[in-house]
């Protein structure tokens, strides 16, 4: 009994110290002077533009990486192609690589004197999109692969003997088996896309009202001693992430037994 309580206490204490306390503190600092100062701080033209940039980044990176993730998962698990092992390892690269390095790599490739110079990638939205896509790439793949392995191929074979073609088998059998893993991957991808700082920071040039995502804007405000602006923007980011999580949890069915 004591052991069990000790474990619970330790886990909760850890969460409180590392998560609840700092986040709660941000909320408190944001609304310390009431709701309206915070509201005004996040509705300035620069803040709204930063929000829009962030939504564009996530809006492109998340669907792209979801589709890629599912296809890559299928490729790795179902089609034993030459170099699948290497491919599987390379997918993890964004997790291992420091985001700043990613940003610098993009800068070298697309920037002045780079291989693909002159395409308005660096210090503009396309570069930021590329950086965001890169760092949020592995999450859907990593969620989908183990589930595909666990489900095995028998259900798919059964579908094929019953007359289903590859497309019908995917939509009626494979996809229902991996959709919740994909959904969880989407939550993680969204969180990463919203929160990415390093890589986006390097390639964006950080021009306020132009190439500033909301995450960059938080830092910008903080350094400009605009405490309310920084905290309020941080709260907006947190709310978007929490909303994604809640939507995904709400969509998940309760009835379907394992």
């Amino acid at each position: 009994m004591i052991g069990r309580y000790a474990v619970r206490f330790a886990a909760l204490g850890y969460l409180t110290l590392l998560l609840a306390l700092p986040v709660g503190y941000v909320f408190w600092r944001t609304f310390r002077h009431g709701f309206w100062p915070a509201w005004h701080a996040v509705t300035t033209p620069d803040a709204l533009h930063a929000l829009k940039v962030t939504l564009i980044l996530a809006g492109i990176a998340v669907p792209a990486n979801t589709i890629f993730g599912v296809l890559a998962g299928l490729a790795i698990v179902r089609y034993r192609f030459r170099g699948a092992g290497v491919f599987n390892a390379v997918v993890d690269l964004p997790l291992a690589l420091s985001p700043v390095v990613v940003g610098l790599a993009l800068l070298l490739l697309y920037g002045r004197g780079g291989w693909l110079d002159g395409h308005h990638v660096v210090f503009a939205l396309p570069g930021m999109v590329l950086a965001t896509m890169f760092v949020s790439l592995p999450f859907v793949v990593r969620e989908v692969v183990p589930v595909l392995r666990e489900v095995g191929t028998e259900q798919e074979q059964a579908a094929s003997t019953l007359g289903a073609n590859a497309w019908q088998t995917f939509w009626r059998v494979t996809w229902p088996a991996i959709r919740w893993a994909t959904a969880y991957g989407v939550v993680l991808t969204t969180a990463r896309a919203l929160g990415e700082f390093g890589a986006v920071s390097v390639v964006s040039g950080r021009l306020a009202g132009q190439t500033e995502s909301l995450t960059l804007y938080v830092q910008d405000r903080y350094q400009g001693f605009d405490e309310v602006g920084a905290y309020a923007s941080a709260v907006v980011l947190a709310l978007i992430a929490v909303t994604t999580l809640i939507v995904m949890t709400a969509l998940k069915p309760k009835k379907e037994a394992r």
Partner: protein
Amino acid sequence: MIATRNIVKRFGDFTALDDVTVEVEAGSLTALLGPSGSGKSTLLRVIAGLERPDAGVVSLDGADVTGVPPQQRGVGFVFQHYAAFKHMTVWDNVAFGLRIRRRPRAEIRERVAELLELVQLSRLAKRYPAQLSGGQRQRMGLARALAVDPKVLLLDEPFGALDARVRKELRARLRRLHDETHTTTVIVTHDQEEAMDVADEVVVMNGGHIEQVAPPRELYDHPANEFVMSFVGPVNQLGDTFIRPHDVELLLEPNGAMQEAMVQRLVHLGFEVRAELVRDDGEVLSAQLTREQVEALELQPGQIVYVRPTRQTVFS
């Protein structure tokens, strides 16, 4: 009719099927019998189109289907581990093939209801596979395979994961079903009793080869070789001679050329008693007796008896 000609299938260095030619008569129920690794499941999967042979020809009803994908072969396949669609109800599982074929709704409703009635799952139509027992899941698997009116029904160790009682019950159900529909059926099993019980014709496989094709009785009475002899039932091997335990007669008095043996153990299996014997030269054999015989002989462990084979087989 199902026919395979000179089928070869390799997995890396392992040859699963080595030049297999076999014919399954239309309307029959045939068992592919063999130990694990004998190639029986692989042969079934080649017939279904789930495996592509490295060489050879598969034909169904006279048409070469070697290159035809499984969805166009018109086969029903039942998997050992059910392969139930976990996210679908029993009803939706059975309706799957009909929905793929875009049958009219009324027809699907009628056909699925009929099949669920047949496998006695009507009450459980709204359940998910996870809420069913193994036997119920396999009945669902059977109904699902039958829904599309397959030309041939293929079952891959369908009762292998079930306990003995359920296995016997489902076996009888499959046999009755076959007697009603006469769908050409092939069942893979490693259980000789199951093969003998359910099938009209048994194909014994070993090491990627076919050892013998025969009806159950002939297989038992006239096994083609040592392997078949020892696989289709218990057997005593004494040198080159094979004797079934029920062909061993025990006597208390020596009579001519009979051999002496000591009763080591008596195993009571209900009506049947198995006597485990050791001959004076150290060879071990077993005899299958009835309870009356044991009582008449007053057999006891440690007793000396005289062994007379009433029937024995020697392979040249």
